[in-house]
């Protein structure tokens, strides 16, 4: 448990070098902060023969202003750097807030935003090495009448009932961010909405990242820069915890009415869930008690709770209401 298996460690200084290693070693594992990876290795659930530490690649790190009033955030930028960056706080305060609420200070000091969005699910059965669907087996241990599934999914279960554990992911989807991926010789741009994939597309992955791919960074467009933003995370503990449900909303108001809104909920589905019903409902309306009542009715529509996670439905509804209420001030 405590000592990790033997592996080679590579610390390339360029993307080309990293790609060469990834091409050479078929099961090479990309590591940056290592906050999630090392736990996998210590539990001996994953045992890659080589690690590629990409934190030495300068171009993957840092925050820069974009042409359209948005920001470029390198994949190995730490969560602390994201949370404390002046430009992020100024333009996308909910991204700074979400980054500051991830786990604990020590995790944020090394953990990267690239790792936060591409981390694997927290399903206890999967993590403990159960041969479940996601691990390549043919059963789900979390979706049985007696299984511990209070942290699991409300939507789009397809054999697997795991949820996205990330706090920054729903924010990036709400801000319509674009993930930049190095795939072979090409740089591929993937909208954050499409970056996260559910078990119906590939049950063994949480993102579109394939073996050999390197997440270069995240481009947050200026679309929602300076808008009213709201992020809230509901978790069992205030520190070092994954969300039970979190919500991210960006909205613009004019003359007391909501003119545009983007609302995304995390930890209720395998991917961040866009609350399109709420978005279409609130645009053109004035925030207030009437609207909140309607939002509460549609926010968690279609949810299909498991045995022990029925509390997530009202939690989701209330978080959506609180997000809309924040517009009334």
């Amino acid at each position, binding site marked *: 448990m405590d*000592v990790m298996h033997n592996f080679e*460690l*590579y*610390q390339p200084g360029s993307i080309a070098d990293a790609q060469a290693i990834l091409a050479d070693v078929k099961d090479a594992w990309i590591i940056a902060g290592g906050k999630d990876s090392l736990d996998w290795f210590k539990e001996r659930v994953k045992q890659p023969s080589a*690690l590629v*530490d990409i934190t030495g690649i300068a171009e993957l790190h840092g925050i820069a202003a974009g042409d359209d009033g948005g920001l470029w955030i390198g994949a190995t930028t730490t969560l602390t750097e994201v949370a404390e960056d002046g430009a992020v706080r100024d333009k996308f305060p909910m991204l700074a807030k979400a980054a500051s609420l991830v786990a604990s*200070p020590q995790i944020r*000091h090394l953990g990267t935003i690239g790792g936060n969005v591409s981390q694997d699910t927290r399903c206890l059965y999967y993590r403990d090495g159960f041969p479940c669907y996601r691990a390549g087996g043919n059963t789900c241990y979390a979706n049985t009448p007696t299984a511990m599934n209070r942290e699991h999914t409300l939507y789009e279960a397809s054999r697997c009932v795991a949820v996205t554990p990330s706090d920054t992911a729903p924010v990036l989807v709400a801000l319509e961010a674009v993930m930049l991926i190095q795939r072979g010789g090409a740089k591929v741009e993937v909208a954050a909405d499409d970056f996260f994939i559910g078990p119906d597309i590939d049950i063994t992955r949480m993102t579109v990242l394939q073996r050999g791919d390197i997440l270069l960074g995240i481009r947050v467009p200026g679309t929602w820069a300076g808008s009213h933003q709201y992020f809230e995370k509901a978790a069992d503990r205030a520190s070092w915890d994954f969300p039970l449900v979190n919500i991210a909303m960006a909205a613009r108001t004019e003359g007391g009415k909501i003119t545009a809104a983007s609302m995304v909920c995390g930890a209720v589905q395998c991917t961040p869930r866009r609350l399109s019903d709420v978005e279409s409902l609130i645009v053109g309306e004035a925030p207030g008690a009437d609207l909140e009542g309607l939002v509460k009715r549609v926010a968690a529509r279609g949810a299909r709770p498991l045995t022990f996670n029925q509390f997530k439905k009202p939690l989701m509804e209330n978080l959506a209401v609180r997000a809309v209420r924040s517009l009334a001030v």
Partner: protein
Amino acid sequence: MDGIGPFDPTVGYPPGPAIREIGPDGSKIPLWKPLHMSRRAFLRGVVCSGTVIAGSAYLFSTATAARADARAVERMLRLTVNGRTHTVDVPPNETLAFTIRYRLGLTGTKIGCNSAECGACNVMVGGMTVYSCSTLTHRVRDKEITTVEGIARPDGTLHPVQQAFIDELAPQCGFCTPGMVVSAVALLNVNPKPTIEEARLALSGNLCRCGAYDHYLRGVMTAAERV
């Protein structure tokens, strides 16, 4: 088969009917010569040899698995801990906590959960607190590392945080204390006059099983007054 059986040297006398009377004076002479070794000394011997066996398995397994690849990291590295630069031989899969404790002998840093949750292994890397149990040593080899041993002055004068923790009776069992000290010092280094909320946030990555959080927070606030 008399006298032959599972020999328990911790007892000091042979088991079973192993004592026979010999000698003109009729004195009882044991068949097995008792070991002139205390129980404690014997146990220590067993523990040490066990460490050697387990430790060498750990060390040499890595050496045999290493492939001759110029691009992989070199095992020998220079690590600057508490202002002193050490040259140490570190396999790629070794965590900073392991290196600090078992290669450099700085056992003030504790290993609690060993999975980046409890904060007992908390050290400063470049002024930032990190969980050393979940950080590869090779990942931080170019950085300035400060452990709890590097907090007090070289003449032994305690850091205000350490003195305040003593004055406020912060530690109970004390296992989380090194990590708490490092977190508190890291906070005061960048924010000498924190609010209690800022202090709470700075210590939020350290678990205290005794639940002495309020004592630690009072300690941080007291130390902030004295810094």
